[in-house]
Each structure stands twice: as structure tokens, then as C-alpha cells.
């Protein structure tokens, strides 16, 4: 389903970047990192507007917005679609799908939402490790395996 999944810390530094799929000249690990990196711009923009909405008059609607951690499609390119999700502690989860692959092009919003929710749960599990310092890169092989599973599972 996804070609790349990234967990980005509060300070916008990457905590985990995992990708699957064969590397080609236009689609490789590095190119996906650029995508994830620029997605932060769109993500922050989205967060900023949510915040300003909150101060506005229809705070009720905004609050429901806030409660929804899934931010939807952040932006898309010819070949990829980038979806965002932000936890309450401002940990950003980014999921990249490839529009050229048959599974990626036909993906539904709900599927992405579920995948990101599962990723959030996995992240929470990984963080629960008492030997993990919050803010450090996630190196857990188990987490990596499970995330890769999410990426492939929905094919």
C-alpha cells in the first residue's frame, strides 16, 4: 500500500523512516525522504490553520477537527501521495503512497486513516520501552518489522 512511512519528532527531526519497494532512479529511499521532508511544510500549515480555527467562532467544529489526528492528504506529486497524521504530543506520522503502483493508486482515504492509526499504536508501543528515550531515533527492529508489515499488508 504505502511505499514509505516516517515518524517525525516534535522538533521536526526524523525519528524513523522506513520504506519498501524497489529503488529506481526516480523512486528511491532518498527521494522519499525529500517527499517526507517537504510534507512537513504542508503538515505544519495544516496544524496552524487548525489552531487558528480553534480561536475563531465555530470552535465546536474546530474541536472535532482537533480531535481527529488524521490530517488527510497533505499533497501529491505526479507519482506519490503524501498523507499526514499528528499525535497529541505533536509527533508527526507521514505515509507516502505511490500512485503508479496498482495498489497505491486505488487507495481509499479510510484505508490510509486506519493504517496511520495502527502506526500510531505501534509507535506508542515502541515508546513504551523503558530503555527508549523519547526524542531518540527509533531503532527497534520489532517496530521496523511491524511498520513494514503495515506498508505491505494492505496490498
Amino acid at each position, binding site marked *: 500500500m504505502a511505499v514509505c512511512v516516517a515518524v517525525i519528532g516534535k522538533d521536526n527531526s526524523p525519528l524513523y523512516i522506513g520504506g519498501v519497494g524497489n529503488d529506481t532512479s526516480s523512486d528511491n529511499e*532518498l527521494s522519499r525522504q525529500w517527499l517526507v521532508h517537504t510534507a512537513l511544510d504542508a503538515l505544519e500549515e495544516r496544524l496552524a490553520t487548525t489552531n487558528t480555527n480553534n480561536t475563531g467562532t465555530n470552535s465546536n467544529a474546530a474541536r472535532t477537527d482537533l480531535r481527529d489526528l488524521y490530517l488527510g492528504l497533505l499533497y501529491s506529486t505526479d507519482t506519490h501521495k503524501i498523507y499526514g497524521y499528528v499525535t497529541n504530543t505533536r509527533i508527526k506520522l507521514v505515509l507516502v503512497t505511490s500512485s503508479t503502483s496498482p495498489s497505491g493508486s486505488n487507495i481509499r482515504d479510510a484505508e490510509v486513516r486506519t493504517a496511520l492509526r495502527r502506526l500510531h499504536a505501534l509507535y506508542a508501543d515502541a515508546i513504551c520501552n523503558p530503555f527508549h*528515550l523519547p526524542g531518540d531515533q527509533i531503532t527497534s527492529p520489532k517496530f521496523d518489522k511491524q511498520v513494514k508489515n503495515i506498508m505491505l499488508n494492505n496490498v
Partner: protein
Amino acid sequence: MKGVDNLIADREGMTNKPIVTCAGDWNLFCTLEAPLVAAIPQDSCEWRRSYGRATKSVYLEASFIKYNKDKVLSELNLLKKPILHIYWTDCVDIEYYKTTLREDIETWHKQLDAVTDWMIVLVETYDIRKTNKLLPRTTVLDKIKGDFGVKQTEDRFITVINPIKSEARSAESWRSLVAKIRHFILVAYNKSLIKFEEHMREQREKRNDPEWDFCKYFILQEQLAFVLEMLGLYDEALVQYDELDALFSQFVLNSNVTESPKWLDTFKQPVTSWQAVRLTALVPQQLRELIIKRKASLLDFRSYLFQRQSAMLLPSSKPWEIASRCLTTVHNTLVELQLLGASAVEGAAACWAQLACAETLRACERLAANNNALDMCTAMQAPLLHNAKDKLHELGKLCGLLPGSPEPSSEQLHLVVMLSAGMGDSEANNQHPTPTDRLKEALCSKTCFQQYYLELAELAMGTYKHIGRLRFARLIGRDLASFYSELGETGKAVVFLMDALRSYEEQGWKDLAAQTRLELVAAAKKMNDADRYTKLSATIASTAELEILVRNFYFEEMMKCIREELSKKTDTVLTELNECFKIVSASLVPSERGVYITDNTVQCRLTVISFLPREVRCSKAAISIEHCKDEKEKKLVKGHKTDLASGSVASQTNSPKRGLVGSDNEITNLITSIRLDDLKPKNPLINPLQISAQLHYKEDRSLQKATVECQNPKVTLKRSDSCKYRKPSATSRSSYENSFAVEGLTLKPGTNEFTLEYPAKKCGMFKLGQISLLVEEKLEFLSNVLIGTKVGFEVVTQGVNVYLNKVEPKKDLVAGLEHAMELVVTSGSSHIEENTTILLKTSSGLLIRFAEDDCAMLRELSIKIPAMEPFQTSRVPLKLFATLQPKKEKSVEHTVWLTCPWWEPLTEVPLHFYPPMVATWRLLTSNTRKFVNVTLKSNVVHLVQFALTEAKLECDGNTTVSDLNPKTAEHMVVASDGTTASFMWELQKDPLVKAGPLKAKFSVHYRPLSVEGASRPFSCSFDIQDYTTLFVIRTKLEPTKGADFCRASQMCCLQLSLQRVNETEYTSLMYEVLADQTMWAVLGRTAGVITMESNGAEPQTVTLDVMPLVAGYLPLPTVRLSKYIAANTKDPKKDISAHPRLEPFSPGQVYHAGKAKQVHVLPPMPKEHLELMPN
């Protein structure tokens, strides 16, 4: 025939109008058509719809055609189908109606059949004459109503006064007609739309039918869109197009996984045209025709759809919506193109996408200028510009227009021609060049391409920056950098890359930073910037994220560059240490002597991790040293005393303690070792949260809530510093004039530990500054300055020290004994020449001599010190003796003054002596005989023992003493462990002669038990006063008369007798019986005043009644005798007190004879005895 030409209407798109047919009197209608057409759109009408759809206010237009009975039930074409049928007549004659008109209407009505959307309009001519008459009984309209009307259709019959003939009177009826027409049109539409939608749904349900055709369905549903557009419901029309869009997309996407339907082959046909989309409200008929004819390529279809969607958005003034849709459309189309595999000239899609973006941008600009949506637009424009730029780049690559590429080949030139042809012609008469023109132009020559590309890129970057998407801006910056780099303007490229690199590093995107470095290094190579190239190579070689092959390559590059390029330079090339090495710790090796002394080497141990992939030769490693600010004032602390008890008798150093007062703070702050990890602020997340569980109870003691509370939220919720990202400013090279250094190291990959040395020349406080690692003699890595860390050390010059020490430091100095001492001279860091003498002077009573030769003791001694090398010590043994002074003070203070040639003032060494022993004496009396008791005791802290001989007591005058001591007194010993020695003498004097004060002197010879040798004298003198016995008190206890024994609880008689034994002036005396209240009860007065006759020697007797309280041997109550001085009433001046007072006697003046006497008290008499007694 009047009415509207269909062809024109189609062409103009927007001019589709509801069609209304007119039957009956066509000529009559023609007179009314013009005002009617004009009147209908003048006002809005509410459109009520079924199925609960929202009611909309709609402006209508209408076109009228002559009724044609064949067209009544035309096919389900919403646009061409007449929507309302009106029968016009101006018949007023009922007879005529009955004969002719009725038949005509009937025919018309029958033809309409099921169609209920009709009206019959009777046009009357206003006749002024008629109004005065009574209304006719029945009018033609009534007749018509009667003939054709049913209940539901009654309002479909209308009379109207002909406005042409009498305008003034007709207004009312005319308005009503127009409103009716509007109303019925809408009602008609409601009906037909419901019908149409049903039909449409039916058609859609068939979509999986192999025979189903999307194009057909598209045209069908589009009719609905057209109608909605016609009614001004653009958003609803847009929904129709969006539905079609989604349907199509789904088909295409599904075609990838399942078998594709046949109709989809239409869109697989080769793409031949990639004209720019035109964002106008007009319906692009040409494309529509293609779709109808099933000859539209995917791009044609997509263009058409996008144009229509935009057209629906144009009136709602939301240009940003168009922009955002453009991007999705472009992305989707490109994906679909790929999925369908439609063949096209390479670059066609890019061309189309570029043009679409550019056209949308142009439209946005045009629209945004009209309304205030500029900001909203800008946000959407940036991605469009980005995409346009990317597509242009793609085209440039295909056509060989990129800088740095060779001249375009003939195939590429051919491609340009093909692409330009496919774009078609741009619309004529445009002042500005259209995007099509610009793209064509750009594809024609390299310079134009460059210009267009840079324009788009700069604009995109600027717009991104404007809307705050800096990461996107930097991404474009990188593209620009590579473009400029190809152009040969590497300098510009470097600027962009550096900017990007910094941001990636700040936020920890190491892979991206590494990639950017690789680009930078290529730029540096191109620029022939050897310095930069070497530095970047070093950094890249140290980047763990990169492949080891890449790292090794750049390591070699670095070495090569150092050898070939940098070796020519005189100066070293400076670079940052942190990127290739990591300082783990720096610690100063503690000096053997505790302090760092000048001319000695100070060592520092440095642990460094090397990230370089291979070993590297470090020609020199150094740590710069910074001198701390000068101490305020160099003061010599004079007469610095050391406590004798601590062991050293005296110490005087030259400078180590100098300036201590001034720089106390600095010294305490300096640390000698540091791990750089320690400097990092502690991760607050590691700290345990101070939270606790709390249970809150309600008033009735039931649990209200349980909470987890944070006691001190300020600690936990502390703001974190933003300094995390702050990069230390470019490091400048500190001065390495004074530095720790080591040469010729090899730094292995990983941890390296080595020691650097610094020969301390000057004294003072120093801090570690910067660390420098010089690799291969030319590349110098500089760390950040460590100043803030306060790692430092103090260098001192240690001068000559002279100490006067006890040989046995644990023993106190005792006066009257010879002590072994030594003069210790340590040379410190200086040489001591031969024939240096130290002069010792002592205070009076203190004597000194060399220990070796047994010469006399002196108060002054000059000591020669042998020549000494630095850090040597020489000792001169001495003997010290403090004479005993006949004082009773507990300790004796002495001073030794040292005169040394090295420093000016005398050095004072205070010495503290204890006396060897202390004598105490007591006078003892027995009646009139007097004895003197002397006790010797030693208070020295350590154990000393003295043998005592020749104890003597000498008294002045004619008083003699008789020695009561045993003759073996030479064995007497006094020691500091508590052993005391006592001596006793009796004063031989006439007891009856009154004696004056007496001076006595006790003397004894002592010598330490441990040492054989001559004894030394110890003496103590004292005065004896008032020692003559004046009174003798005797006490006697007698049982009461009749009793033989003293018994408890029985009255006894205490007799005091006071006898004067010597002459005295005191005659008035007071006695006090001091009885122990547990043993004695004194009845009556316990005290009294008696007067002794001055000449009489008769004893005075006092009798007191006392009662023993207990049985046993009881000591007699004691009696105290005092001088009684009566109140002096006569001369108040002489004596202040008007009261009598008591004065005690000296101890020897009153002798209490019964002091130690005891009486035997029997227990109380048994009770039987008492009862028997009267018998």
C-alpha cells in the same frame, strides 16, 4: 420564424435557455414576444423542488418557438425539449370561440396529451367603454376554463391586457403573466428533471454492461449539468461534472486490476493533440464533438472536463479552487495516461501538464486581480508553479535544452516540432503571450528555455517562501542549484545548497544533509576550490549515513587534495572538528605534587572519536590555553600561622598562596576533567515525574474522585531552550602560543586516547581553550571553544619553604625539658646555593642548640644550609629548651624568629609550651597544730613521668617546718596519667602566739624517668595567711534526762561549746547549726549570736533540742561560725548597709572538734514499753 437559433446557443454555451412553444395566434404572440423575453429574467423566482432538495432562488430566461406538434414528445433531451406550451388567443367573442377556437384549442390540448405543462393566455384589449358596463355574464376565458379546466389546472388560464395597446392599464396583469410563466417553467423543470434523473440512474446502473458507453452517458449527464448551469446553479452543475470525473477515474483505475470495458479503448487511442486548456465559461464544442464522436483522446477528455469544471467555478469567484483542482487533475491524468497506456509522443503529457498549470495560473491571476482572493490564490499558485517548473524541466531534458547538454540532436529537434504542433495555435489577438506561446518559444532555443525555467523556478521559490513553505522553497533551491551548476554559475548553486544544508542539519535530516554535501562537493570540484573540496571530502568521509565506498572514495580524495593542492599553501586550511571527530573527554592529569609547578610539564588526556573511515596521520594535536584574567592584587599573606597541633611548626611559602584571596572564586569554579557528554542539558524526559495519586473524598467520606497530581508542574513544564538549533558561529583559530601539544599521532577510526603536554612557564590560572587536530600537516580541525566549560588549572611557582618541626610531632612541647626539633628546608622549584644561612632567634626563656654537638644553649643560632637542587629537602636537627618560670599559668608562649635570605621580613614561629607539672597546696589544722600539704600533678597531654627528689618546704622568718615525709621520697613519681605526688610538713610555731602572714616556698628536683641525667629544680611559692586557730567548737549530744540512750524520734540535747584559744578582735559571733534534714530535726532556733569575752577563756555553751529522725550512727550536725558584724546605726556614712552582716573565717581559724564525730542512735522504743510505762 423568430426564436433563438440552436446552433448559436450551443456555441455560446451559456445561452441555453428553456424553450417555450407558442400555439394559437402566432401573430398576436409576435407582438408580445419582445417584452416578454425581456421581462422574464428581470426578477428571480423561487424554485421549490421535490425530494427535500434545497429551495433556490433562480433567475430565468426563456426562448419561444412556434408550436410544432411533432416536437412535443421529443427524446429525452433536456435541452432541446420544449418545457412549456402556451396557447395564445385574443378572442373576445364567445360565438367565435364556440364555432372555431374551441376546436383549435382542443386539438392542441389533445396533442399535448400527457404533458401538463401548458398555459392558455387570453389577451384582451383594454376597452374604456367596457369598464362602465356591467361585466358580461360569461367571458371567453370562463368558457375555456369550463371546457378544459380541471381543479388542478385552474390557474393555467390567464387573461392579460395587451400591453402594446394600453401600457398603463396592463401592468398588473402583465406582471402576473410573467410570474406565472416563470413559475410554470420551474414546475415543469422540476418534473422533467426528476424524470430525467431517473432515466440517468437507469443508464448508470447499466455501466457494467459490456455495451455501455461512457461517452454516451457523459453527454447524457452533462445535459443535467447544462440545465443546472442554465438555471444559475453552478455548484450543482459542478457536482454533476465531479460525479462524472469520479466515475471515469474509477473505471480507469479498475481497468488496471480487472478487465477493462470496451468503451475505454476510445481513450487508449494515440494522443495527437495536447492543446492548452482554456479557462473560459464557453463550452469547448470542438472537444465535445470529439467526445460525442468517440474520438476524444484521454487528454482531450480531461481537458474538456477540467474546462467545464473551471467554468462552473468561475462565477463563484473561487480561483484557488480551480488552482487546486488543476493540480489534482494533472496528477490524475498523468497516472491515467500511464494506466491506459495511450501512446503519445514523449513529452506530450508533460507539455499538456505544463500548459494546464500555466493556463490555470494565468486564469488565477486574472481572477484574483478582480477580487480580494489574492492570498488564497497565492497559496495554491506555488505548487502550480512548482509543477509547471518540473514539467518544463522534463521537457527541457527531452529536447536537450538543459544547460550542459550537447546541442540538440536531430531527433530532439524533430520532437520539438512534434510537440509544438500538438500544442496547436494559441488564441489570436492577445497582447500578452499565452502559455502556449511561451512554451513553444522556450522549446525553440536554449536561452529562452533557460529564461522561462528560471522565471518559473524563482517565482515558485518566492511564492513558497511567501506562504511559509520553506522546505518546498529549499527543494526548488536545490533544483535551481543543479541548474545553475550546469550553467556554470556554481557560485549561485553553492548559495542555495548551503542554505538547504543548514536547514537539514538543524533538524536532523542526516541523509538529506549528506546528499546535499555530495552536491556541494561536486560544486566545489567544479569551482576548483581546493579548500572547500578538501573540507567537504573530509566531512563526507565521516558521514556514517553514506555507503562505505563513497566514504572511502572521498577519504582518498581528501588525502589526494591535501597532498596535491594544500601542500603548496603556507597556511593550514581550517575546518570544523565536530563533523569528523568527536571530543569525548579532556582531563588534566593531576600533578604528583598536588599543584602544577612552573617549569614542569602539565599533561592533559584527550579522548577523541574519529569518524573517518580509515587511519589518518595527525601531525599535531593541540589544545590552546587561555590565561585567566589577572588576579586583582598579589598580596603576600604575612605570618601565616599553622596550628602547632597539626604537625608543622611553621610554614612559610613564597607564592603558592599568593593572591588566594583575590581569585578564590575562580579556583573553586575550575574543574580538571570534563566529559563533553556532561555538558549537554539533561533530557528532561528522563527525570522522574513528581506525581502522586490522590484520593478525594466527599463529605460523607465516600470516594469522590481519584486523581494523579503533579506536585511541581513548573519543573516538568519548563520551557525548553531554543538554543538547541543554534549553530556555533564559525570557529576562529585561537592563539596556540601557549598550548598543550603532541605531535605525530595516528588517529584510528573510533576512539583514540592520547596525552598532550604543556611545559608550564608562567604561573597563574589557565583554562583550556580550543582543540586543534592538524591532519597531514595542512588540514586543521578546530573545535568549538571550550572556555565555557571552565576546565582549567593553576600553575604556581613554589618557593623555598622553611619549617621548624618537632621530631615527635605528636608530643606537646613541655617547658623545662629539652626537645628534639628539626629545621626543614624544602627548595621548591628553585636552587639553594651553598653557604646560605638561616638565623634563628628565640624569645627570652627559650634556648636552642644543635642536636649533634653538646655545646651550650643559646638564644641565637645561625644555621648553614647545604646547597640544594629543586625539590629537595634538608633537615637540621636542633634541641630546644624552654626554662621553667615560677608562674602558675597553664601554658607558656614562646616565639622563634627565622631570618632567611630569600625573603625580607622575619618569620615568626609561635611555640606553645606546657609546664611539666603543677603544684597545689592546702593548709590542714588539728586543734592548734598546722600542717601544709603540697600535691604535684602533671597536665601534659602525652605521657610523661618524672622522678622527684629533694622535696623541700622553706618558710621565711623564724617559722620552722618539720618534715613529715617519708625519707624514701626519691621514689616519688608524678606522671601525666594521673599519678600525683603529695608532701606534708607541720608548721612549728607557738600555738598561742598570734602569727602574721607567712611566705612559703616549695621546691623539688625532677627528671624524666626515661632519661638518666641531672635533675632540674621545680619550685612553687605561696603565701599562708590567717592560719592561727582562734576558736574551737565542740559539740556533744546527750539524751534527755531520764533516758540512757539516744533514740530515734526522741528529743535529745545538743550542746555546743565554743572556746577561744587565741587572741582575736572578733567577739561577736554567729553560730548556725546545719543539720541534715533527713537525719535531724532541730527544734527551736538553729542560729544565734554570741559574744565572747575578749579576755575570758571560758567556753561558751549553747544547748539546742534536736531530734534524730532515724536510728544508726549519725554524724552530728555541723556548726558554722561566722563573724557577726552588727548594723552600724551610729554612723551610716561609714557603713552603707544598715543591716547586720556575716563574714566567714579563714579555714584555719575555726577548729571544729566534733566534725567527724558520730552518735549511736537506737531505734525508737517499742510501743509495749510505752504502754507499760505508766504502770
